[in-house]
C-alpha cells in the first residue's frame, strides 16, 4: 500500500544547535547578516569556524582577536550593527566607500583600541554619536561624504590622539568646536556642511544655543 506520510508532520523536535561560540565571530556575523553583499566579499564568513581570523578581510592579533576590518570599496549596502562594539581589540574599522545606510551605532564608542574609523563616502544618516569621544586611541576619524545631521559633539575635542578628523560633505549644523584636539584642525575638515555656522571663537560669543 502507498504510504505517503509527509515528513514535516513528523517533525517534532526543532533542532537548532548553534555550533559556534566565538563572541567576535558572532559580532562580525551580525554584520554579515545586516548587509547585502553583491560581490560575495563576505562569503568566507562562516560562523561555525573556530574564530573569525581566517575570514577574508578580517585581521587578528596573536591572541586571535580581531584588529582590522578591511571592507572599504566592497559594494556593501545595509546597516552597521551595534554588535561591532564588541570587538574590543579592533584598531581599524575600514568600511569606507560603500552604500551603508542608517545611523552610526553608538556602540562603536566601546572600541577602546580603535585607531582608525573610516566610514567615509557612504549613506549614513543620524547624528555623530557622542560616545565616539570614548575612543581614546583614535587617530583617524573620517565620517565625510555621508548624510549625517545634528551638531558635532563637543566631547570629541577631548580625543587627544586625533590626527585626522573629517566630517566634510554632510548635513551637520551648529558651530565647530575649537578647543582641545580640534585646535589643530583646518576648515577642510568641515567643508560642505551648509548649515554649519563656523568655528566658535574662544572668549567670543558661543553660537551653541538652541536647536539646529
Amino acid at each position, binding site marked *: 500500500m*502507498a504510504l505517503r506520510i509527509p515528513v514535516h508532520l513528523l517533525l517534532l*523536535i*526543532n533542532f537548532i*544547535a548553534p555550533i559556534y*561560540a566565538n563572541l567576535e565571530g558572532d559580532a562580525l556575523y551580525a554584520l554579515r547578516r545586516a548587509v547585502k553583499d553583491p560581490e560575495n566579499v563576505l562569503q568566507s564568513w562562516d560562523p561555525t569556524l573556530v574564530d573569525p581570523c581566517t575570514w577574508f578581510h578580517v585581521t587578528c592579533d596573536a591572541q586571535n582577536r580581531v584588529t582590522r576590518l578591511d571592507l*572599504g570599496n566592497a559594494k556593501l549596502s545595509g546597516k552597521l550593527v551595534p554588535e561591532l562594539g564588541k570587538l574590543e581589540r579592533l584598531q581599524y574599522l575600514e568600511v569606507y566607500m560603500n552604500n551603508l545606510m542608517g545611523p552610526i551605532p553608538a556602540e562603536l564608542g566601546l572600541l577602546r583600541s580603535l585607531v582608525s574609523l573610516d566610514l567615509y563616502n557612504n549613506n549614513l544618516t543620524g547624528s555623530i554619536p557622542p560616545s565616539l569621544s570614548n575612543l581614546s586611541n583614535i*587617530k583617524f576619524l573620517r565620517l565625510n561624504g555621508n548624510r549625517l545631521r545634528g551638531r558635532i559633539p563637543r566631547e570629541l575635542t577631548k580625543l587627544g590622539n586625533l590626527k585626522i578628523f573629517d566630517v566634510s560633505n554632510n548635513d551637520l549644523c551648529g558651530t565647530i568646536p575649537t578647543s582641545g584636539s580640534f585646535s589643530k584642525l583646518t576648515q577642510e575638515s568641515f567643508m560642505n556642511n551648509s548649515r554649519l555656522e563656523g568655528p566658535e571663537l574662544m572668549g567670543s560669543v558661543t553660537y551653541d544655543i538652541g536647536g539646529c
Partner: protein
Amino acid sequence: MKTAYLFLTYLSLLTLCLCSSIAATTEAEALIRWKSSLSSPAYLKSWSLNNISKHCKWIGIRCNDGGSVSGIDLPSADLVGTLDLFNFTALLNLTTFNLNGNTLNGSIPAAVGSLTRLTLLDLSNNLFVGAIPPEIGRLTELRYLSFSNNYMVGEIPYQIGNLRKVSFLDLGSNYFKTPDWSRFPTFPFLTHLNLYYNELTLEFPHFITTCLNLTFLDLSLNTFTGQIPESLITNLVKLQYLNLTTNAFQGPLSTNITNLSKLKDLRLANNFFSGNILDSVSHIQSLQTLELFNNSFIGEIPPSIGLVTNLQTLDLRMNSFNSSIPQELGLCNKLTYLALAQNSLSGPLPPSLSNLNNLTELGLSANSLTGEILRRFIKSWTKLISLQIQDNKFSGELPSEIGQLTNLKYLFLFNNSFSGPIPPEIGNLQNLLGLDLSTNNFSGEIPPTIGNLTNLQIINLFSNNLTGTIPPIGDLKSLETLDISSNRLSGELSPSISSLGNLTTLKLFGNNLSGSLPRDLGKNSPLLSNVSLSFNSFSGELPSELCSGFAIVELTATGNRFTGPLPECLKNCSGLSRVRLEGNQLSGDISEAFGIHPQFDFLSLSRNQFTGQLTPKWGLYQQLSNIQIDHNRISGVIPAEMGNLTQLRVLALDSNQFTGEIPAELGMLGELIALNLSNNALSGEIPQTVGQLTRLLRLDLSGNKLTGGIPAALGNCERLLSLSLRNNFISGSIPSQLGGLTSLQVLLDISNNSVSGTIPPSLGKLTSLEILNVSHNNLSGRIPAELSGMVSLITFDFSYNNLSGPIPTGGAFRGAPAEAFGGNTGLCGAAQGLTSCDANSPTRNRTKILAAIIGSVVSIVVLATTIAICLILRRNAKKDDQESKGSATYEYSESLIWERDGKLTFGELLLALMVTWHQS
C-alpha cells in the same frame, strides 16, 4: 387444471431456482476470473472452481438471503493486481466493496458505476492511479466512500455531488486538483470530509459550510488561500475535528470561533493567520489538541488558557505571542505536549507548571524566558522525553533531580546562563540521545557518569567553564558528535576515545588539553570527518590512522605543539576541504602530503617545518581560496600552474626558500586580496601582470633578490592598502602612478633598493597613508612640497638617499625627527639636526603674517571706533547706524581670516589672536 396449475407453479419455481443458481454461478465465475488476474492471490485460497457452489462461504464474501454476493470485504488481504478484469456487471447486488490496504494498481473502471446498490466503497490505501470515474455519481446509495491514500489524479468529479446520502467522504492523500466547487451541492448527511494532502488551490470551498452535520473536516496540506468564511464558524457547530494545517490561508481569525464549542482538535498551523485569537479559543473547553504554530498570531497567552483543562497538545511555536507564561497554564494538567518555542515570551516559568506531570515533550526554546528551572518542576516532569529550553535567559543551577527524568531522550539547555556543576545524576538518563548544554556558564568537571549514557549520539558542552579532564567515554558506542570546545579542560585524552565507532565530529579546540593524542585515534572511527584540536597544548605526532576511513573533511590543529609528518591517509581523503595546522612543529615533504581533493577550500600550514617543493599539481585545487604556507622551509620555484587557482584570495608563501622568478601567471589570480612572497630568494623582475590583481589589498615582495624597475602597472591595483618592496635590488625610478593608489593606508615601503630619480609629487595624493619608507636608495632632487598632502603620515623615512633642498613644512613634516632625513647631504629645514634653509622659520613667519593682518584689522576697528566715538560726541546722533558699521567690520575681519588659503588651523588662529592681544 389443478395439476396444470401445480405444474406451472413448479415450473416457475424451478425456473426461479435455476435462474438464481445460474446467476450465482456467474458471480462466482466472475470472482474466480478476477482472482486469476491477481498476481498474489494466496489470501483467496478458498475461491476455487471446486468450491464454486459454496462461494458464499469464500473468504471475504457475503451473500444476501437470495444467495447473491452482496459484500466483498478484503481489507489488508495482500492482493496485488488491478480491477481491470473485475466484472462489475456480474455483481450488481453488491452493497459493500472494501479493498482497503492492498497493493492494487491501475485505474478504477468506469463500470464501478453499475454497482448502484453500493452503500460502502473503500478503495483506500492502494496504488490506484487515474481519475475518479464520473460514473461514481450513479452510486446514489453510498454512505461511505474512500479513495484515500492512492496516486489518483485529476479534478474531483462534480458527479460526487449526486451522492446525497454520503456521510463519510475521504479523498485524502492523492493528487486531486480543484474542481468547480460551485457545482457541489450540500451533503445533508455528511459528517466526515477529508480532502487532506492533495493539490487543491483557491478559496475555501463554499459547499462545505452548508454541510451542517460535519463533525470532521480535514483540508490540511493543500494550497487553499484566502480567509476562512465566517459561515464555517456559524454553521458547522457540530465540528469536533478541524484541520487546516499547511495551506496558504490568511487573515485574522474570527473571535466567534468559540461557536465551535464541540471542537476537540483545532489545527491551523503553517498558514498566514493573524490576529489575537488565543483568548477566544481558550473558551472552547472541549479542546484536546490546539496547534497554531507557524502563523502570525499575536497577543498574550491569556490566563483563560487554564480553562481548557482537557488540553493534551498545545503547540503555539513560531508566532508572535509576547507575554509571560500565565500560571493558569498549570491547570491544564492533561498536557503531554507543550511547545511555545520561537515567540517573544518573557519572565520566569510560573511555579504552577509543576502540575504538568503528564508532560512528555516540553519546548520553550528561542524566547526571552528568565529565572530558574525549579527543583519542583523536574521532580514532577518525570515523563519527559524531550526538554528543549535552549536560546533563552534561564539561569541558576541545574537541579540534581534531573537524574530522575529517566525517559529523557533530548536535553537541550544551550545558549542560556545556567551555572554551577553539571549534576553527576545526569548519568542516570539511560535513554538520552542528545545532550546539549553548550554556551552557558557551567563549571566544574564533566561528570564521569556521562560515560554510562550508551545511547548518546550528541554531546555538546562547548563554551562553558568546565575544568578537569575528559572522563572515559569509550562505551558511548552511538556517539556521533563530541564538542567540548572552548572550556578550560586539561590533561590528556583518554585512549578510550579511540573506540567510538560512530564518531563523525570531534571538537576539542580552545582548552588546555595536553600530551599526545591516543595512537589509535581514528582507527576505529571510519566516519570521522571533522576534527578540531586547535588551541590546546597537544604534542607528539598526529595519529597515523586519524583519517583511516578517508572521510576527513576538516582538520584543524592550529596552535599546538604537534611534531612529525601529516598522516599519510590525508592524501586519500577525497572530500578534504579545510586544513588548518599553522603554528606547530610539523615536518615532512609537502609535495607528498596531499592527493586529489576536488573540494579543497582552505589550507594553512604557516609556521611549521615543512620541506619539499610545490609541484604543478597544486594548480588542480581549483576551489582553493586560501594558501598559507609561510614560515616553513619550502624550496624550488613557485609553479606557474598556481595561476589556475582562480578562487584564490590569499597566497602567503613568505619566509621560505623559494627561488626563481615570480611567475607572470599569478596575474591571473583575479580574486586575490593578499599576496605575500616576502623573505625568499626570488629573483628576476616583478611581472607586469601584477597590475591585473585589481582586488589586491596587500602586496609584499620584500626580502628577495628582485631586480628591474617598479612596474608602473602597479598603479592599477587601486585597492592596495599595503605595498612593500623593501630589501630587493630594484632600480629605476618611482612611477608616478603610485600616487594613484589612494587607498594605501598601512604601508608604502620601497626602502633598501637601488631606486633612483626624483620622488614623484603625485605621492602627495596618498592622503590615507600612515607609513612611508623610501630610505636607503639613490633618490635625488627635492622632497616635493606636495608630500605635505600626506596628512595621515605617522612615520616616514627619507634617510640615506641623495635628496637635497628644503624639506616640506606642512602636515606630518612639521616637527619631523632628524633621523627621517639623515644620510642626505643636501637637505635643509626645520627638523632638528638639519641645517636651516632660511633664517625665518616658516611657522613663525605665518604667525607673524597673521599677527600683522589681525593687528591691522584690529587697528582699523580701533581707529574706526575712535572716529565713531568722536563723531558721536560731536554730532550725538545716528546711533543705530554706527552700531551696524561696527558689526560689519567684525564680520569682514572674520571672513578675511577664513578665506586665507583655508589651511589655518584653529590653533594658529587662536595663537594669532593672542599675539595681537599681547601687541596691542
